Every structure is written in structure tokens, then in C-alpha cells.
């Protein structure tokens, strides 16, 4: 009850017209940078810090919250329309979202992403307001062994992302795992696969690979297609909004995505990508039409898009309750707090309730604004597909190169992007799926570092993975997911042959 009262006070702060305006500025900026591949919310907030320093703290956090959520909304737009995730959190959305767009259901895909993001954002923010202290206690229980077990679950879960051919999917996954190895090893400081290049010491940037494989690769691929046949894209087919059937197929994935995204965002190594993988797998398993996945299943957009937004709310839990940043964006927001001489943590709720509850209230308002901003735009964005492919992809190439160069001002990165573009072209030609590359790049290093930390802390004792209850249960879940379907099919076949 106390929380509700404080929240009411927070709305009092956030609904002040000036803060409403800043919230709008934030969500607009966020949506735009979400759409631009390469530029993410962390960089944007870092660059805005010196500017917002002149504002009062509430206003600047209202802007930052808007940017963070807005980026998640915006990134699904490019994922669906041009098969390029604006942020890695929307990677999974490309699989079914872009298929939907090609079948003329772009507005429905955009709408289910926007509404799902809104539902998840609102529920996630409510949970942030009400149960943050309890959630963070659970999150801290997660040790390295448990994270490794969680990664095992994720690796099993991505099997549904590998596409129709297991061999091609694994090939792509291993390319990603190999790319993820490049750079300084976190535990020992040793350089791996850097070939003496300073530019490779920090590893290959994931956004560089995403933009290269998806945006540049797609543009090159389109360029190699015969022009006369015209585009395979059907810009619009059917109503420019979601049909009743699409609504009824979406609402459960929205809620399940939220339930998966929020806790995984709150654990200190979760991030926004991992929950989307698990959500996608869950939806595919639960769907009565698993064969549609990969060919435009709306659940494959609704679930992951809800999951990544809920994860954003989750990331704010350790940030606000303990002052612990668990993502790059959260780290920059922490720096922003410190710029005002404020320290997020248990004491901040007591010392600056106006700020904390104002921020939380403005997150609700920002989510509502994003929905209002994005729903009408869904039909409009979809018209982008009417732009002739050469122009559209020419524009995408320009923005991709600018975005990648802008992040580190490194021509080397532009070179890596181009190389990944060529790789993307070859993979498309050979019908090798792209998403597993990024999955490997994200999960591989995380699994490795957590495994090594766990073993190192246990002084080489491998039993650590089965003696901890959380780790053991997660490993059992992974095992069940891996061999369960096989056993189930066997049992059914046996029953069938007996009958």
C-alpha cells in the first residue's frame, strides 16, 4: 500500500507538463535510435549526459527511461520491415516478423510488437514498483554455476532458432561462437585470435556483426537478385490492423514473454537477448502450429518483443534497489545518477522518493506514449516497403555505415561490417540462417566466462554444477528439453505401432 501511495506521488511529479514533454522527447529519441541499426541506447544516453546535466535530475531520468524503452520499441520496426534488428534484443523478431511483413502482414507484426512491448513494459514497471526488493534478493542468489546452467537452458532453447536444417543451423552457431572468442580473454587477460591487431583486442562488436550480416548482407543479396522479377515482398495484404484471430494468438505470448523477461532482466547477467531466445522456444513448444514458426507465426513476434521490454524493467531492479548496473545502458544511467551526486541503492528510495517514484511513474507514461506513437505509425511504417528495393537498401547501407562508424569512429569497424555483409550474402545464397551467428556470439562468451568463474571459485571442483540447487534444477530442465521431445516421439511411435 505504501508503494501505491508513493507511486501516486510519483505520478504527481511525472504528470507535470514539463516532465511530460521530456518524456515525449525521450521516447521519440529512443524510437529513432532503436530504428537506426548500430546506435544503441547506451551510447545515446552517454552522449546526452553533458546536455542533460543542465536539467534537473527528474527531467533527465524521465528522458533516459524514455530512451531505454523507446529503443526496444523502435528496434522491432526495422527487424520486421527490413530484416535488420535495430538492437540485439530484437534479433529473434526478424525470424517470424520479417516473414509476416513479406506476406503483407507487416502492420499486424508491428502492432503485436508494439502492444506486446506496452503490456510487458507496464507489467514490468508495476513489478519494479511493487516487488523490486524481493526480486533483487532472488537475483543475488544466482552464482556463476547457476548462470552457466541457465546458459545451458538457453543453448537448448536456441535449437528452435536454428531453422529447418540442423547442419546449417549449427554451422551458423559455430561461426558465432568463433567470432565471440576474438579479443582479450576476460579471466586471464590473454589476447585470443587478435593477430596482433589493437582493433581486435576488445573483440568484434556485436552491433557491427548484426548490421553487417543483416543490413549489408540483405542489401548485397537484393542486388544479386534479377531485377525483372520484381520484389517478393507483398507490401500490404488484409486489414492494416490486427485481426481477431491475431489478437487471440498474441495475448498469451505477451504475458508469457513478460513472465520470462522480467526475472531474467533482473538477474545480474541476464540482458535483453537471453529472454527473447527462451520466449521464442516456449512459444514454439506451446503452439498448436509449431510448423508455422520460421514462416511468419505471430506468436514468434509477440512473445520475444514482450520479453525484451520486460527485461528492460528487470534491469532497472538491481540498478534502483542496489545501485548495481547489469547492462551497458544501466551503467551509463548509474554514471548519470552520480553526476548529480546521487547514488542509487537502498537509501535512494528514502532520500529522494520524488526522483525514484517520479522515474517509475514516467516509465508508465512513457510506455503509454510509445504505444500511442507506434500504433498509428505501424501502417505508415509498413508503407516503407513500397519504396523500390534499390532505394531502400541504398538508404539502409548509408545509415548502417554511418551508425557503425559513429560508435567508435573506427574505419576498422566499417571494414568488419563489410566483411560480415559479404558473409551474410554467402550465407543467404547457401540458405544458412543468420540468427544463430548472433546467438553464438552472445551466449558463447557468457557461458564460457561463467563456467570458468564457477570452476575457479570452486578451485577446480566440477561438482559445483550439481551441488547447487538452482544450478542442478536448471541443468535438469535443459536435459528434459533436450531429450524430452525425442522420448515423447518414441513413446508415441511405440503406442502407435502397438495399436
Amino acid at each position: 500500500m505504501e508503494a501505491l501511495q508513493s507511486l501516486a506521488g510519483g505520478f504527481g511529479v511525472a504528470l507535470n507538463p514539463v516532465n511530460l514533454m521530456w518524456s515525449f522527447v525521450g521516447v521519440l529519441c529512443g524510437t529513432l535510435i532503436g530504428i537506426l541499426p548500430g546506435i544503441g541506447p547506451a551510447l545515446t544516453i552517454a552522449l546526452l549526459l553533458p546536455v542533460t546535466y543542465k536539467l534537473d535530475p527528474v527531467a533527465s531520468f524521465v528522458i533516459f527511461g524514455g530512451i531505454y524503452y523507446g529503443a526496444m520499441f523502435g528496434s522491432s520496426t526495422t527487424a520486421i520491415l527490413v530484416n535488420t534488428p535495430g538492437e540485439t534484443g530484437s534479433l529473434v523478431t526478424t525470424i517470424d516478423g520479417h516473414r509476416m511483413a513479406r506476406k503483407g502482414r507487416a502492420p499486424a507484426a508491428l502492432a503485436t510488437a508494439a502492444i506486446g512491448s506496452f503490456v510487458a513494459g507496464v507489467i514490468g514497471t508495476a513489478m519494479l514498483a511493487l516487488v523490486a526488493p524481493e526480486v533483487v534478493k532472488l537475483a543475488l542468489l544466482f552464482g556463476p554455476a547457476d548462470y552457466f546452467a541457465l546458459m545451458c537452458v538457453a543453448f537448448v532453447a536456441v535449437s528452435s532458432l536454428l531453422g529447418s536444417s540442423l547442419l546449417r543451423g549449427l554451422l551458423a552457431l559455430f561461426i558465432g561462437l568463433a567470432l565471440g572468442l576474438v579479443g582479450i580473454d576476460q579471466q586471464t587477460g590473454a589476447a585470443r585470435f587478435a593477430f596482433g591487431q589493437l582493433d581486435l583486442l576488445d573483440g568484434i562488436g556485436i552491433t557491427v556483426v548484426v548490421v553487417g550480416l543483416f543490413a549489408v548482407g540483405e542489401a548485397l543479396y537484393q542486388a544479386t537478385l534479377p531485377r525483372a522479377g520484381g520484389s517478393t515482398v507483398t507490401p500490404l495484404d488484409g486489414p492494416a490492423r490486427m485481426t481477431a484471430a491475431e489478437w487471440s494468438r498474441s495475448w498469451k505470448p505477451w504475458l508469457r514473454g513478460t513472465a520470462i523477461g522480467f526475472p531474467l532482466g533482473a538477474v545480474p547477467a541476464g540482458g535483453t537477448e537471453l529472454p527473447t531466445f527462451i520466449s521464442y522456444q516456449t512459444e514454439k513448444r506451446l503452439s498448436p502450429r509449431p510448423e508455422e514458426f520460421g514462416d511468419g507465426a505471430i506468436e514468434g513476434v509477440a512473445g520475444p518483443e514482450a520479453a525484451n521490454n520486460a527485461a528492460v524493467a528487470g534491469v532497472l531492479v538491481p540498478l534502483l534497489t542496489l545501485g548495481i548496473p547489469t547492462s551497458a545502458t544501466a551503467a551509463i544511467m548509474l554514471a548519470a545518477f552520480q553526476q548529480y551526486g546521487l547514488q542509487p541503492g537502498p537509501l535512494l528510495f528514502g532520500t529522494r522518493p520524488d526522483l525514484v517514484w517520479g522515474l517509475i511513474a514516467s516509465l508508465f507514461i512513457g510506455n503509454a506514449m510509445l504505444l500511442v506513437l507506434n500504433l498509428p505509425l505501424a501502417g505508415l511504417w509498413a508503407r516503407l516497403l513500397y519504396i523500390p528495393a534499390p532505394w531502400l537498401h541504398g538508404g539502409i547501407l548509408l545509415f548502417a555505415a554511418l551508425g557503425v562508424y559513429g560508435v567508435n569512429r573506427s574505419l576498422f569497424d566499417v571494414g568488419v561490417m563489410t566483411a560480415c555483409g559479404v558473409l551474410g550474402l554467402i550465407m543467404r545464397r547457401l540458405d544458412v540462417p543468420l540468427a544463430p551467428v548472433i546467438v553464438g556470439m552472445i551466449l558463447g562468451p557468457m557461458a564460457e566466462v561463467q563456467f570458468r568463474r564457477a570452476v575457479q571459485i570452486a578451485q577446480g571442483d566440477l561438482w559445483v554444477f550439481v551441488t547447487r540447487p538452482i544450478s542442478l534444477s536448471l541443468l535438469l530442465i535443459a536435459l528434459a528439453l533436450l531429450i524430452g521431445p525425442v522420448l515423447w516421439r518414441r513413446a508415441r511411435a511405440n503406442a502407435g505401432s502397438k495399436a
Partner: protein
Amino acid sequence: MTKIVRALLAAALGAAMAAPAALAQDQLTIMAPAAPGGGWDGTARAMQEVLQATGIVKSVQVENVAGAGGTRGIAQFVRRSGDSKQWMVSGLVMVGAVIANKSPIGLNDVTPIARLTSEWQAIAVTPESKIKTMQDLAAALRANVAAVSWGGGSAGGTDHITAALLAKAAGADAARINYVAHSGGGESLAAILGNHVTLGVNSASEFMPLVEAKKLRIIGVSSAARIPGIDAPTFKETGLDVVIGNWRAIMAAPKLKDSDRDAVAQLVDRMVKSDAWKAKLKERGWENNYLPGPAFAKFIADEQKQVGEILAAVGIGK
């Protein structure tokens, strides 16, 4: 006649030659060899604000060149030889990174101007930890150095160096320390709070909010004298002879003329003595640790030696 022309020409040339020195006060670029948001970036931006607000330099640009612990930045920076309008933020982390990355270019290739600030390191434990004091820690390290796991930042960074120096000072084998590297302060704080590691090593300021909330206890700090506001002894007081701060400094481009170098040092000196800079330090929680001139050059040499030895002991940069 020709004499007059010559004299005029000489005067014009002289004016042209003198002009760049005067311009040094008008504009300036400070490279932060790291991404926006970190300590080096913060130092560069704080300098930018203070230099402009006090009118010491009219226009200051901050340039971020991130990567490889600053070695990517310094590799670009040395190309700006002889240009007194090019400054770069540097610090202890770069000393370590140059060694760890076997970078051919190091701090000896630029012009040292002054050390500006230090952030002190601290050792923290949870209230339920068996280790209550630095003496407990030293005893545990001597009993079995690998059984004590340290949660801190990147391998070869300030936290790692601190841990290794402490183990060595306690009489344990620094090469066998069980140091668990994390990618950022947040991740390591979570591991410490969750009791997944024995103790945490980080800058004291990062621990303070959790100390105030009574979720962590600081048992020792790395400064030479006690830090006001922190109820913990220095390492030295507890018998572990380790003093180490995460210092940050300002460097100028290589091969400056002596007169240019002195001019740069003067600008920095005016900035450090301004009230605006003192206010900035207070706001950021940085300790003023100003050390200009030849003393700073000697300090760098000492740090390179100490860091080099300890990193070699833990097997980094081999």
C-alpha cells in the same frame, strides 16, 4: 631598402611563428582513450567544463577513442607529435594495459604533464563473512591462497593489481591468487553481495553506497592515510605494505618544445588551482592528487616498474 624588407619579413615570420603559441589558449582537444561514461571520459569532460568555465581555454573538444585499455587511443595520440593543443587523459590502467597488450607504444612515448586525481581501492566483505579484518585476510591467504576468491574488475586492471600486491605483502604466492575478473563494477558487486566470492576489491567510492546501507563492510583501504568518512584502517596500518591508487593524469603530445610543454603545464596548473576544479572533484568524489613536472615523470617510472613486476607475477603480459 632590402634591409627594411628583410626586417619586415622577419617580423611577419616572427608573428606567424608566435601565433600558434598564443592559439594554444583558444582551443584544445582532449582525448579520452575510452568510451563515453567511464573514469577517463569523466576526467576529460570535467576538464573541458572547468577550462571553459574559467576561461583558461576558450574552446575544448573531448574526443573518445575507446579500446584495449587505452592502448588504441595512445597509438593514435602519438601521431600528433609536437602539437601542444593535443592532450590525452591517462592513468594506472593504461600502464597495465600497455604491459598486458604488449603495446609497442607506451607512456614513455608521450609528454607527461601532471597527475591529477586518485581514487583509492578498498577491500569489502559481507557482514556474514568469516573474514572480519585485514589480519584475517592475511592469515587466510597464508593458509591457502587459492581458497580466497577475489571479485573485482578486468584482469590486469587496478583491482587485480591490488589483490596481487596484497597477497604478496601477506607472504603468500601472488601467482596463485584466485582472482575472478568481472566486466564491470556492477557485475562484481552482485557477486560479492551474493557471497559467490570471498571478498571484493574495487574503488572505495563504488562500495560506499552499499556500506552505508550496511550490506557490505570495508575492512581496509589502499591510501597512505585514513580516508575521512570510511571507518577502516589503511593496508599499511594492518601490516600489509601496499599503497596503490587508481590515478588519472593528463599527458601532452610527443616531442613538444620545452616552451610549449611549460605553457601546457601552466594551463593545467591554473585549472587545478581554480575553485571550479575543486568543486568538480568534490562532486565526483575524486581525491586531488596533483603532481606536476619531473616528479610526475619519476612517479610514472616507479609505477611502470611496480605494475610490471606484479603483472609478471600473476602471469599477464608474458
